[in-house]
């Protein structure tokens, strides 16, 4: 029986007419008629679609057909046809497997997508129901925000994967700091680590290169992904250790990253598939661990795009260790000039974490920068008193990561700033600066150095902190306000003289007024933007400070609402401070005016 006669037999069996077959396969009725009329066989590409319509496999259609098939064509043609059919069969199997993977993916994803979508839909309905209850609506929106964030992550990963697969991913080639990169990674993962009560330790070996060229964002994505997996797959209260090391090889520096946890680990079988897309250690519905199953696949693809390698070691119950090696172009940057400027500065470091103290001590000794390390705020106050009594005061206090028996970093900074405003207070911390900046600067912390601390970031940071604002008088660290104009409103002539004397250190132009009325007239008659700052006494004859500021703020000129006005007063009732704010003042300086507190304020405002 020829293939064509088998086709017609099956058509009859399945009650499919020639016109229907033509319609469903796209093969013209004339061609189909020719097979019957001329006893020829259809070409291989048409057999597949015919099989689909008839509901049989190509092999079934071909089954035992060799003898009857052979006479119609040459042997060579027959071989080619068989080969073509075999290849088509293979593609069909692949397509089926691919379909299956898609179905599995969709099944997984539908749960992961539906879960946050449920929250979004449900919370939206709840918010609408309680539309008048602002707090309840706010709570619902907060939950919607969280769920949306999660959903966005899923979508991003799926899109990322697609971008990588289609070869559309481009790696940036920009200068970046390893210290900043690792600090960012730590601040991103820290909340999850804290939430699960894990202990986290970052160990950095000898770091000869601190600045590289490459794609810092993608590197961050890789490291965050690996650490997040460790966090997710480690039961609460676990241990996560990250080590970062470098090795220079010719013109490249290899960055070795290893993340080790004591989590649930993986089976040998799963380990084989870990880099396959949509694979997760256990279903999220069972483990309650959410994710797309794309993370490790993305990691490997990015690492490979960076010419690096990634390997995983793990066994069930014994934790997991992921190692990544990426070769990067490094940038040589000398620390020496910055370090040289620090040799005559004395630093007091408050750090009770031995590892951190060791790192800081090592770098400072290497560059011969005079320093003392104390473990607590009490010891720091004693050391400062000693130094002042011996007339060899410290120039800066570095508040480290941990302090023994002390208040919060803000309490320490606030006390030091109040008692010794000339001191430059620097914070070395693994916290996210943008989150703590407001409170930290209010407490008097002037500069921030991110953890992990490397040579360049430490020396550069110290140098920037200590040179910032230095103009003539290092003890008061007066900022350079050349070109700025300050209106000093003060009725007491002695106080006015003292303040003028101090302000002159900043090189700003100082103009004075004896009462609020004069200050108001001066401001009114000045061009817009003329004054950069107004320092306003409160209790004055003719017109007091509150009234003067109220009137200034009410003027119809662009800078009336924006010019910073600071009260200088001894009135420290909470109500007075509130009153000065209500009048339109931006802040408050306690009298008797402390030179250094004034400088601190100027530095912050201008």
């Amino acid at each position: 029986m020829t293939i064509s006669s088998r086709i017609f037999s099956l058509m009859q069996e399945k009650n499919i007419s020639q016109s229907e077959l033509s319609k469903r396969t796209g093969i013209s009725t004339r061609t189909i008629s020719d097979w019957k009329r001329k006893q020829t066989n259809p070409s291989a590409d048409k057999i597949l679609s015919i099989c689909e319509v008839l509901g049989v496999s190509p092999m079934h259609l071909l089954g035992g057909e060799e003898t009857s098939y052979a006479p119609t064509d040459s042997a060579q043609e027959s071989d080619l046809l068989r080969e073509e059919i075999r290849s088509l069969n293979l593609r069909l199997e692949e397509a089926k497997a691919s379909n299956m993977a898609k179905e599995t993916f969709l099944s997984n994803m539908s749960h992961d997508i539906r879960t946050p979508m449920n929250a979004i839909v449900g919370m939206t309905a709840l918010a609408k129901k309680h539309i008048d209850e602002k707090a309840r609506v706010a709570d619902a929106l907060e939950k919607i925000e969280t769920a949306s964030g999660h959903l966005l992550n899923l979508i991003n990963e799926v899109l990322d994967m697609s971008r990588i697969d289609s070869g559309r991913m481009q790696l940036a080639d920009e200068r970046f700091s390893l210290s900043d990169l690792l600090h960012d990674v730590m601040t991103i993962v820290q909340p999850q680590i804290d939430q699960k009560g894990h202990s986290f330790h970052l160990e950095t070996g000898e770091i000869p290169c601190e600045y590289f060229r490459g794609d810092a964002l993608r590197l961050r994505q890789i490291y965050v992904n690996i650490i997040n997996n460790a966090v997710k797959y480690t039961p609460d209260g676990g241990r996560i250790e990250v080590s970062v090391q470098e090795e220079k090889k010719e013109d490249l520096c290899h960055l070795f990253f290893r993340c080790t946890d004591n989590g649930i680990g993986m089976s040998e079988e799963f380990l084989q598939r870990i880099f396959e897309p949509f694979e997760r250690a256990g279903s999220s519905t069972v483990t309650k661990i959410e994710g797309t199953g794309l993370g490790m696949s993305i990691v490997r693809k990015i690492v490979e795009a960076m010419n690096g390698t990634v390997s995983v070691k793990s066994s069930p119950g014994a934790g997991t260790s992921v190692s990544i090696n990426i070769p990067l172009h490094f940038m040589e940057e000398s620390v020496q000039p910055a370090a040289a400027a620090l040799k005559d500065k004395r630093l007091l470091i408050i750090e009770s974490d031995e590892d951190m103290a060791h790192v800081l001590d090592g770098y400072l000794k290497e560059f011969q920068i005079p320093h003392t390390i104390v473990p607590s705020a009490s010891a720091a106050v004693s050391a400062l008193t000693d130094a002042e009594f011996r007339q060899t005061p410290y120039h800066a206090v570095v508040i480290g990561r941990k302090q023994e028996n002390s208040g919060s970093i803000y309490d320490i900074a606030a006390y030091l700033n109040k008692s010794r405003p000339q001191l430059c207070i620097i914070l070395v911390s693994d916290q996210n600066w943008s989150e703590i900046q407001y409170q930290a600067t209010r407490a008097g912390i002037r500069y921030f150095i991110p953890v992990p601390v490397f040579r360049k970031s430490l020396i550069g940071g110290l140098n920037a902190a200590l040179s910032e604002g230095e103009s003539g008088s290092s003890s008061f660290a007066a900022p350079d306000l050349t070109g700025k104009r300050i209106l000093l409103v003060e009725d007491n002539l002695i106080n006015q003289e003292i303040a003028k004397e101090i302000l002159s250190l900043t090189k700003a132009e100082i103009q004075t007024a004896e009462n609020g009325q004069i200050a108001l007239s001066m401001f009114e008659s000045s061009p817009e933007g003329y004054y950069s700052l107004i320092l306003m006494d409160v209790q004055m004859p003719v017109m007091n400070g509150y009234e003067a500021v109220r009137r200034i703020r009410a003027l119809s000129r662009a800078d009336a609402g924006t010019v910073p006005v600071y009260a200088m007063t001894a009135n420290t009732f909470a109500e007075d401070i509130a009153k000065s704010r209500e009048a339109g003042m931006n802040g408050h300086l306690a009298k008797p005016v402390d030179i250094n507190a004034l400088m601190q304020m100027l530095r912050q405002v201008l």
Partner: protein
Amino acid sequence: MENWQKTYIENTRSISRLSNFFASEGSAPETWAADRQKAREQCVLLRKENISLLNRYLFPALDELHSLDSTSVDALVAFADELLDWKTNLDPGVYVVIHDALLSVARVRKDTDAVIRELYKLGMGYYYLRRYLNGIDVPEAAAFEFQNEMVFTEAGSYLHYFDQLENEDTKGYIIRAMANVALCTRNTSRRIAASAKTLQVAQDPHYRQQAPNLPWDAFVRKTHQQMSANREELSSGTMTTAELAAVLDSCYEIFKPEEQSENPSVRWIWPFYEMEYNCGYVSAEVTLSRIEHLVSKTPPDQFDMSGLYANVQLPVYYGRLLKEHPRLLENTDSIRFLNEAYRKMIRVLLTCPPDAMDDYFFYVIRAVITDYYEVEGVPSYKEITRQLLARFGGEDYIRFCRTGAVIRCICAAIYQKEPDFFDDIPFLAAIGDPAEKEKALMAYAQDCGLYFDFGLLKMNISRTMLTRNLFENEYRMYCLHTDSGHNDLIERPSTACFADIALGHHRWYDGSDGYPVRYVRNRSPYRQMTDITACAAYLAADPGEDPAGTLSRMQKKSGKQFSPMVMAYLSDQQLAEEIQRILKADPSPYYEEIRQYVSG
């Protein structure tokens, strides 16, 4: 002292006297309420004058401190000293402001003697200011302790230069500051280390020779006393052998001679017994019987330190022991004794004459509020604290009653229209009968007025608020009254339902402002009542304000500071008028209620 300073002190004393309801015991019942109202009006005027005096004289003086002549500075110092006399402590806040400014000047002038002296004095000022926070265990309090510790630490660190300093008074400040570091930390090891170091220095002949006129023996004795205060920690098991020995040594040094005397004072004998118990020398049972003996032999009209010690602190300690060792409750005699002792304790507190109400008196009241053990067979915490509020709340009590009446009024209006409005509150939801439920709601509403500011009772900051406006650091302390009230109320079953009201009544409805941040409205089943209390408290805050004006201001903050649901009810004309009537009503019945408490 200058005249304005004398006037300020006199005004402050007058306010203290006029605001003490017990002091007007002599008034006839029929004129009592009128007398109280007159006294309140006088207080308002004196307060106004005080604020004006500070604004007109003190702040300008501090303003010009750099150029002030020595006579004026001396007068300022004398004024400050009068405000903090270590007994009545009229105004630690102003004392701190003055010495803070003097320290600032001393630092600029690099006058080491003045820096050390002012550090010590500022430290003492901070210490007395921190008394507002005694017994308030919240993280925010740590910042004040730390600030205090640093000031003393800095003064103490000049010990290295003891030989180089000439002024003997300065040397005395150094030793005292060193010792006082122990007053500023909750860490036992650091307290012990500070006292041990001071004892070492104070007994060292080298230092004694450097300043032969200093009262070294008094320093030693005082420091032993400070060291012995760690006796409570003896049973904690966290002390090193050296620390244990140091504390025991000081306890023997201070208390043993008293124990061996013929008629030892309770104040001295009890710490010795306490030490013996904490060391494990004697059992809890023996300690209980020792307390029973000491309390029984002390008459209820003994209001000196020993009397208050026996009649107030020991019953509190007795309750703590029973709480720590529930097995002791099996002996019904213990509960019977505790009941009697608690009743005697409250009688003593309510009848204490004004001249005995010093800092120590308020210290023991705080101890009662913090450690009262509510157990079956003794008066409930609610019963005890209600009496304390009436007795020591002063004008605040009137405010609480008024607020309660406003809350009742709002609740009644809401319940009428939405009977399930309060069903998140577990004990109300459990009541099926509507009439019973309404009755329970009304009683609860009235008591919410009484307890929302409960934290203020323990802080005793109202006295300062009657005298003048609060300074910024005092205001920061004042804000902790919400946490303080919550923490004490939540601990006892009879008051737990008021805890969230106390915590959340200053937090804004939308969570964007107010305090404390830890109150999360949506997590509290009492949130609706907290919302209502916040509105009622705002309305009743100032009896001099026009309620209509206040309501109109509040409407502008509806949905932000105040609950829009409550504000919607308050926009009802009839309800608003009813509230105005309550707020403007004659307060005589409230005063009469207080009088009955005061007269026992």
